[in-house]
C-alpha cells in the first residue's frame, strides 16, 4: 500500500494521502476556500519536506481551483475582468515570492518563515472572521438583517487609473486589485496556499465586491497564480512532486463535492464561525510549536537547501 514519492524521496501509504486529500477537500468544499492552509501543514506533519509541501501544494490548489471555477462559471459568478487584474498583480507577486523563497532556503530559514506566515495570517484572519461572524449571529438574533449602503466612499476611491468592473458593479482604481493580487501572489509562493482565506475578505472589505461574485472570482485568479507558482517552483527549486499532487487531487476533488453539498445546509455565519475556529486552531497549533522546546535542537539539510 506504499507509494514512493520521487521528488519528496520518501515512501508513504497512498491511502493516508487519499484520506488527507479528501478530508481537506471536504472542508474546502464546505467553506469555499482552497484548503491550502490546511494541506501544507498536514503534509509537513506527514514528513514531507516543507519546500516540497509548498511546491506540491501549488499544483493541488490549481486542480481544485479549476474544478471550482467551472462550477461558479456556470452560475455566472466570475468577474473575468477583476480576476485578470488580480491575476496580473499575482503573477508579479508570485515571481517575487519564489525569489524570496529561494533566498530563505539558502539561508536555512524557510521552515521558520513558512510557519511564521501561517501563524500571523491564520491568527489574524481567523480572529477577525470569528469576531465578525459571532457579531452577525447576535445581530440577527436581536435586530434582524442590518441595512447597508451600496457603497461606502473613503480614501481608496480617490486613487487614479479608475476602471469600471461591470460584473461587480464597481468603479475603482485598477491599482487596488493589482496590489491585492500582488500581495496574495507573494503569499502563494512562500506558503503554498491559494490565499483564498485572505483574498476573500480582502475582496469584500477592500475592493467592496458583491459577496456572490467573490468566491468564483477569487478561484479564477487563484488558477492563474497557482499555475504560475507550479511552473516557477518546478524550474527554480524542483519541489513539485506530481505523484503526491495526483493522490491529493484525487482525494480532494471527491471530498470537495461532498463538502459543497453538506455546506448548502448550513447558514452563512454558522459556516464562517466554524471556518474561523478551524483557521484559528491550525494557527494556534503552529504558534504552539514555535514556542515549545524542540526534541532536538539540531536539524539537517543538504547543502544549499532549507
Amino acid at each position, binding site marked *: 500500500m506504499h507509494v*514512493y514519492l520521487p521528488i519528496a524521496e520518501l515512501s508513504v501509504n497512498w491511502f493516508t494521502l487519499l484520506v488527507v486529500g479528501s478530508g481537506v477537500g471536504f472542508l474546502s468544499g464546505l467553506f469555499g476556500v482552497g484548503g491550502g492552509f490546511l494541506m501544507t501543514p498536514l503534509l509537513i506533519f506527514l514528513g514531507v519536506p516543507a519546500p516540497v509541501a509548498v511546491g506540491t501544494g501549488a499544483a493541488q490548489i490549481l486542480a481544485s481551483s*479549476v474544478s471550482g471555477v467551472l462550477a461558479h462559471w456556470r452560475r455566472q459568478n466570475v468577474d473575468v475582468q477583476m480576476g485578470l487584474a488580480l491575476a496580473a498583480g499575482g503573477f508579479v507577486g508570485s515571481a517575487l515570492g519564489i525569489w524570496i523563497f529561494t533566498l530563505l532556503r539558502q539561508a536555512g*530559514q524557510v521552515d521558520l518563515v513558512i510557519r511564521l506566515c501561517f501563524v500571523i495570517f491564520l491568527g489574524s484572519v481567523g480572529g477577525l472572521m470569528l469576531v465578525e461572524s459571532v457579531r452577525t449571529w447576535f445581530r440577527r438574533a436581536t435586530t434582524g438583517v442590518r441595512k447597508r449602503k451600496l457603497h461606502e466612499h473613503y480614501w481608496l476611491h480617490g486613487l487614479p487609473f479608475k476602471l469600471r468592473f461591470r460584473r461587480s458593479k464597481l468603479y475603482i482604481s485598477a491599482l487596488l486589485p493589482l496590489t491585492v493580487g500582488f500581495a496574495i501572489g507573494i503569499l502563494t509562493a512562500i506558503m503554498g496556499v491559494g490565499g483564498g482565506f485572505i483574498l476573500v475578505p480582502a475582496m469584500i472589505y477592500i475592493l467592496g465586491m458583491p459577496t456572490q461574485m467573490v468566491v468564483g472570482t477569487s478561484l479564477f485568479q487563484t488558477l492563474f497564480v497557482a499555475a504560475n507558482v507550479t511552473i516557477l517552483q518546478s524550474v527554480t527549486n524542483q519541489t513539485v512532486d506530481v505523484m503526491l*499532487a495526483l493522490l491529493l*487531487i*484525487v482525494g480532494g476533488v471527491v471530498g470537495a463535492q461532498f463538502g459543497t453539498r453538506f455546506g448548502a445546509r448550513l447558514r452563512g455565519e454558522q459556516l464562517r464561525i466554524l471556518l474561523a475556529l478551524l483557521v484559528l486552531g491550525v494557527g494556534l497549533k503552529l504558534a504552539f510549536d514555535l514556542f515549545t522546546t524542540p526534541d532536538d535542537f539540531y536539524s539537517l539539510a543538504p547543502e544549499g537547501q532549507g
Partner: protein
Amino acid sequence: MRSSSPIFLSVIAILLVQGMAARAQPLVADLSQHLVAITAGFTGADIVMFGATDGPGDVVVVVTGPPKPTIVRRKGRLAGIWVNREAMLFADAPTFYGIATSKPIDEVLAANQLDRHQIGVDHIRLLPPNPEARRDDIPEFRQALVRARQRDGLFATEPGKVTFLGERLFRARMALPAKVATGTYRVQVFLVREGQVVTVQTTPLLVSKIGFSADVFDLAHQDSALYGLAAILIATAAGWTAAVAFRRI
C-alpha cells in the same frame, strides 16, 4: 528480492569450489544483488552479504552510503521562538552507515584500529571541509548529525550480526530503509585476526531509481520547465475531469 536463499546457496557452492581451488585468498565475499532498484512501490530492501574465509577469524561488514555535503543547524531561542542559529557544513557526510560483526565490535578491534578503518558510527571521519571552520563545538554538531541519521534509520544504532556457518562460511543481512539516498554504496568486508585487519574486500552496491520514479525525478531536474508544464496540465485535467464528472451526479 528478499528471498535470496537459492542464489545464496548456489553462490556458496561456487565459492566452496573456488575456495578449494585458490586457497591463497584469505577472504572471498559478495552480495546477493549489486543493484537496489527504487521503484514506485519501494519500501526498503534487504541486502545479503556472504563469503568465505580461509580459516578462523572475525568478519566485520560495513556499508557506507554515498557522501553528501550536509548542513547541521542548531536552534536557539530568539524572542521566545526557536530559530535556526549556528550552522556547520560537513562536506562528506555519508548518507547511510550500516555495520555487522561476528562478535561484539570491542572484542574484535581496539579503538585506534576502529578509527583507522572508520568502523562504527563513532569512528567515521566527519569534519567541516575548511580548517578555519573547525570550532570547538564540532563534537556536538557531529553527534547531532549521527543522531538525526539514526532517527531516520540511516545510521546503525547497533551492529548487526555476521553469522558463521561452520568455521569458514559467513553471511550477514542489512536492511536499507525506504529513505535511502541514491548513488554508489561501498560495501567493505574486513577479515580480522588477533586484533588486526588481515584483509579488506570492497564491493560497490548501486542504489538507483528505476522506472517511473526515475523518469519523474530526471525530468524534474533536467527539464524542469517541461516538468512544470506537465504538472500544470495534469492538475488542470484532473480538476476539469472532476468538475465534469460530478456535474452529472
